[in-house]
């Protein structure tokens, strides 16, 4: 899976789950302020991403550092790399 494919799948998954506008899915979009998600949504987002990419991220400390959609892209790309390496 290329980075672009990963980003596309993340965006599509979040657009579908949270009824977001595709045009809002830019890297710098802040998850809370711009995409309008809240803490309950973040819990569900983790479930969605785990399902879409077959990774376990729920207990990952670095999840707490995520602020923007770009952060999510980087986080999942890294997780996919780690998984591939292992």
């Amino acid at each position, binding site marked *: 899976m290329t980075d672009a494919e990963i980003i596309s799948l993340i965006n599509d998954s979040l657009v579908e789950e*949270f009824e977001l506008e595709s045009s809002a899915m830019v890297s710098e979009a802040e998850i809370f302020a711009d995409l*309008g998600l*809240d803490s*309950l*949504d973040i*819990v*569900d987002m983790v*479930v969605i991403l785990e399902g879409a990419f077959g990774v376990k991220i729920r207990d990952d400390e670095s999840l707490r550092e995520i602020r923007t959609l770009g952060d999510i892209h980087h986080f999942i790309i890294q997780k996919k790399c780690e998984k591939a390496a292992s």
Partner: protein
Amino acid sequence: MRRVAVTGMGAVSPFGRGLNELVGGIVAGRSAIVVHDKLADYGGLRTRLAALVTGVDGKEIARNKRRSMSSQSIFAVLAAGEALNQAVLPEIEYGSGRYGVVLGTTISSLETSESFFADHFRDKSFSRMKTSLFFKTMNHSAAANVAQYFGLEGRLLAPAAACATGCQALGYAYEMIVSGAQDAMLCGGTEEFHPLSAATFDLMNAASFSYNDRPSEASRPFDRQRDGVVCGEGAGVLVLEEWQSAQARGAEILAEIIGFATLTETGSIAEPSSAAMQRCMALALVDAGVEAEEIDYINAHATATEKGDIAEAQALYGLFGDRVPVSSLKGHLGHTLAASGGLETIATIEMMRRGELWPTRNLSEIDPRCQGPQIFTETKKCKPKLALKNNFALGGVNCSLVIRASQ
């Protein structure tokens, strides 16, 4: 004593969204019952009939509010919105703790549970569970979603009494206002159709299936050829308000709730009891401080089951003789279960306001065993001052409400 005004009514029914659709369908004498093709997919189920809500799109509710709502909460929110629009309660009071919600349903969202467990049982994992599961399936989901959506911060109660839920909700809300604990309540019942409801009645030989090929003829309260319930869905929600405050703010008072009773018959969890029904109606009259002779119209529970209709007819005859006009709206609407108390009370109030009584649909020949009370078959021009509303439920629950016309 504090009096209780009805100042708002809202409906989502098998006739569609809104009070006008509900009333229009009944006045036109239409049937909302359809062949529900999906029921053919289930083994062991004889009925193919249902009274389903169409033309309702929950998408108008913002996603972050809707995520915790199954269909029954969406129906309830839309009906509550209509009721609040009519009541025009002072919004400044929403957060006062004096405005509450009493709203129940038969059972929490089965569709949501079914969907979750169908996936869950693949590996018994909870890793795919989303936060919305609990909020959609908790027993007070519809009541909580309504309170959250409108910001009503008073009491929250989600009564569950199957087919009597809506009537019981209205009664408990009435009592909370009379007692002084609350000043206004959004109250009623809501129901989303699931095949399990139809299967439950079918199992007990109480669901209609002889009319699978003639859906508009199914659900025949008091009729000799009746063969059972047709399950439906919807929501009926009313705004009840302390009389003086409603009057002081110039609200239009649609009717007054003046009496309520509910009691449990413990001889059987499933069998209707004529004696308990009669006792419940009598207690409601006592609560209202009126005599049986003063009642001008009775909106019966009458679901078109073999035993329930006979028991209610006998109870009605025992208390009222043949003097009071009686009808059931389940020939039009099917049995909307928890929503029936709210929807049928709304229709009863509309009859009182319009000065006409709507007859029982599909009643061609009255069952001799239901003979006695004045069960009418044509629209009557009549302006009832006092009406009685019955709802009875599996579990032995009986409920009666006494309604006074606003003028």
